[in-house]
């Protein structure tokens, strides 16, 4: 293998990794809103806390399951849907549009919450 070929392979790999990293980056609002803000919702004792959370546009909300039982975070209107989250597992979603987003745990539907995005 020539030096040139090795260089090309190396470049290609670098580009691929860069692309993969870009793909992994959570999407943020494509406007001038401050990005990077985050807010937490804890899942404790089969409830979301706080049950209603007010955030500004561009905020990433992070849910953490602190129960011994798996839960999910599912938008009632189909906007977002987590995989099943076992103990200490997290789910995050970045809200890019103002509005009210009701959600629930599809395993224990009595568990409901709301994100108010302004």
């Amino acid at each position, binding site marked *: 293998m020539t030096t040139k070929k090795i260089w090309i392979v190396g470049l290609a790999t670098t580009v691929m990794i860069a692309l993969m990293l870009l793909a992994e980056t959570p999407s943020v609002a494509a406007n001038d809103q401050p990005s990077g803000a985050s807010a937490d919702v804890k899942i404790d*004792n*089969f*409830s979301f806390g706080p049950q209603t959370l007010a955030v500004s546009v561009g905020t990433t909300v992070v849910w953490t399951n602190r*129960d*011994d*039982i*798996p839960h*999910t975070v*599912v938008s*009632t209107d189909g906007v977002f849907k987590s*995989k*099943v989250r*076992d*103990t200490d597992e997290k789910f995050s979603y970045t809200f890019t549009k103002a509005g009210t987003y*009701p*959600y*629930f745990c*599809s*395993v*224990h*539907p*009595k568990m*409901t919450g709301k994100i108010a995005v302004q």
Partner: protein
Amino acid sequence: MTYKNQDLIDQRLQDLNYDDVDRRGFLKCMAWAGTGLLWTLSGGIPSSRAFAKSHGHEAGKGGDFSFVQISDSHIGFNKPANPDVTATLQTAINKINAMPHKPDFIIHTGDLSQLSKPSEFDTLDQALKGAAAKQIYFVPGEHDMLSDNGEEYLQRYGKGTKGSGWYSFDHKGVHFVGLVNVANLKAGGMGSLGREQLEWLEGDLQGRSASTPIVLFAHIPLWTIYPDWGWGTDDSEQALSYVKRFGSVTVLNGHIHQIMQKIEGKVSFHTAMSTAFPQPAPGTAPSAGPMKVPTDELQRVLGITDVNYLVSGSSLAIVDSPLGDSGSSASGSRGGLAVVDSLFE
């Protein structure tokens, strides 16, 4: 402790006796609050008795056949109060195999797994292979439909079933119906059967003689036990309206990891204990999460409890008698108390 609980039960009995519902015949039910129930059908009246009393007295005498209900194995759960749920399932299977009268089959009322993982189902299958009763009927719990709308569950246990896994079968003159009330749950609601399943159920029961004994089984209770914790099924009234004309209806559920029983006219409702971990009595804890007990108390919490219902004429007698050796009464009685507290208050 036991006597105190007995007093409470006796007190509740007084209330029950005011119920003028026509009691049909004689029903004796003893539930073993550890790993499962043995059901004996005799003349269409199901009764259950504890495994540990399988040499026992008249329960099951003359019974046409028997089956065992186990529930809520939660294979994959590994936290307090039970880090080894496979071992306690094995204990249940050993108990079943040790019974002198072999049950015709086993019904598992759901939550086979903790997270619907193939490896968890594999472990369950491996354990159940050791059961002497080869025929096992399943219905899914919400834990069995977590990741893929129940695809994994249905592939393994749902052959020949309809929709999300419901079906019926006949056994020696008794009609059994396995229902699924853990799929497509709605925000803010409890368990749900859904219109498609209800229509199927109505059709399934149509044309059957009213004298056919009916057994309905599903994961979440088909009667409302505690709405705050979702312990009920939103559209169960509709389902129960289809069985009203039958002379003997038995409803078997799991989900709540404790024994609760109720008799309403010709319908008797029962929930089974878990083979994995206990859950608190309704409203006695901040949530319905696993009830943590010290390791050396686990066996006692999963210990053996009899709950006997004697229906004779218009009088209903409930006798709580812990089965275990001396010392098992404190926690053993808990299950019995839970039955009484939730049912009649």
